[in-house]
């Protein structure tokens, strides 16, 4: 059913089709309308075998989901920014307890200064939590990722939380045509969640128990192995999804013009703009391709090395920064390409919702290819630091 809907609805509708048992959230811009839509569906009786719980904070929301997921429920929440980092203590626990909670993070900048606008700093802060992270380009991809997220997260060989990262405002508030899935398509693709062990009075267990030095490390090794297995399982699920839905989003990466000399790499909605930039530059006779990175954790090292083996220059578009170092994607990419010798130039732009116009981006990429640009922040006003 093709409809023009906002990003919020495309996510909420997909969540409904996945038949969650517990939805628990705390409102935060620009996420709120996702759970508002779900609350409406719940109030209208469209969500069977489901409880919608309002929490007093994101910390509480995540905690409720840890309990619910451990009790065998399929769980959902959406958050971003301050909400995500308030959840962070709980989410590290959820990963350690190997609970397949699905989170939609509507990427938003972090305080201070307070900003409700878009960049990727929030999800980057949770890079090392043991949560699978996938970045989507548009609202159809966000919609399609929800059933896939449950299938991957709930796989016995994986059992890790799954975070779908979609750009706040740029996607959440945007109206786009979205082919809304049919219930029978989702039902045929996603089996009900039935873990072997869960919290029940009939066979009491405790989750995430105390592990002294003689046994703690093994649990972390197990998480790493689960992430590595997830890499393969995700490829399979992505392929299965392409067959079931007729929409192929590619694997961990999508590579456009793979035979190019130069490449631009980015994640999230800015990829849409870069497609146009790449087309225009190619029309000017510049050999440039595009790598859309979909999966950020587990990081697809081999896939990147293979796709970029003949690249001479790689331009990284980052929308987050690790203060004291550089853009997060750039750090990860250089590490993945260790031993290879392409030139890597990274730009950090669009922080806190700063607009990135197409022509600006095109000039930047073009000049970088022509050797006229160095790595760093772009698209900000030069300033003098003063203490008022």
């Amino acid at each position, binding site marked *: 059913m093709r409809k023009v809907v906002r990003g919020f609805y495309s996510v909420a509708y997909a969540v409904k089709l996945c038949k969650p048992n517990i939805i628990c959230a705390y409102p935060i811009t620009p996420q709120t309308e996702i759970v508002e839509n779900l609350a409406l569906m719940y109030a209208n009786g469209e969500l069977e075998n489901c409880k919608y719980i309002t929490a007093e904070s994101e910390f509480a929301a995540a905690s409720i989901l840890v309990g619910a997921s451990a009790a065998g429920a399929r769980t959902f929440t959406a958050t971003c920014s301050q909400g995500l980092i308030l959840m962070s203590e709980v989410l590290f626990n959820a990963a350690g307890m190997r609970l397949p909670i699905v989170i939609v993070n509507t990427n938003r900048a972090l305080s201070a200064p307070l900003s409700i606008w878009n960049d990727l700093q929030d999800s980057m802060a949770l890079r090392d939590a043991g949560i699978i992270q996938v970045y989507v380009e548009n609202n159809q991809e966000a919609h399609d990722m929800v059933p896939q997220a449950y299938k991957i997260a709930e796989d016995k060989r994986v*059992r890790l939380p799954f975070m779908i990262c979609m750009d706040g405002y740029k996607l959440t508030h945007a109206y786009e045509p979205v082919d809304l899935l049919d219930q029978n398509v989702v039902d045929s693709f996603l089996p009900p969640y039935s873990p072997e062990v869960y919290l029940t009075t009939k066979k009491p*267990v*405790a989750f*995430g*128990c105390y*592990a002294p030095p003689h046994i703690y490390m*093994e*649990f972390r090794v*197990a998480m790493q192995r689960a992430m590595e297995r997830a890499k393969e399982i995700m490829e399979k699920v992505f392929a299965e999804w392409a067959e079931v839905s007729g929409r192929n989003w590619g694997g961990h990466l999508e590579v456009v013009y793979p035979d190019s000399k130069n490449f631009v790499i980015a994640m999230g909605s800015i990829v849409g703009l870069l497609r146009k930039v790449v087309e225009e530059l190619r029309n000017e006779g510049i050999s440039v391709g595009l790598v859309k990175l979909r999966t950020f954790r587990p990081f697809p090292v081999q896939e990147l090395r293979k796709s970029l083996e003949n690249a001479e220059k790689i331009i990284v578009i980052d929308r987050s920064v690790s203060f004291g170092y550089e853009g997060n994607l750039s750090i990860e990419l250089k590490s993945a390409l260790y031993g290879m010798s392409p030139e890597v130039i990274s730009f950090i732009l669009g922080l806190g919702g700063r607009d990135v116009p197409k022509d600006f981006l095109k000039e930047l990429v073009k000049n970088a290819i022509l050797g006229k640009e160095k790595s760093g922040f772009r698209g900000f006003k030069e300033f003098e630091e003063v203490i008022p």
Partner: protein
Amino acid sequence: MKIRLNIGAISEPLQSEQFKTGDWGTEWSFVDREKCTACRVCEQFCPDGCIEVKEIEGKEVAVVDHNYCKGCGVCASVCRYGAIKMELKELFKIDVR
């Protein structure tokens, strides 16, 4: 031989019994059976549940399980009869010059 690892650190009931914590602290508590009235206050307050009132030689007294006592001293501070004393473990009775 490979160990068996419960994914998600999932544990069944009473597993903690196998986990002896008695060597954690520097002190542990001893009950003076003459002074003890078996009032059960220490039993209630012990955060590790390792004090139990038992009948010994015809008298009900508090008994500390040194397999689990972490030496927190709560029992000694709540005892109204001065019957519980914390004692430094032999291991820690060393001269530091």
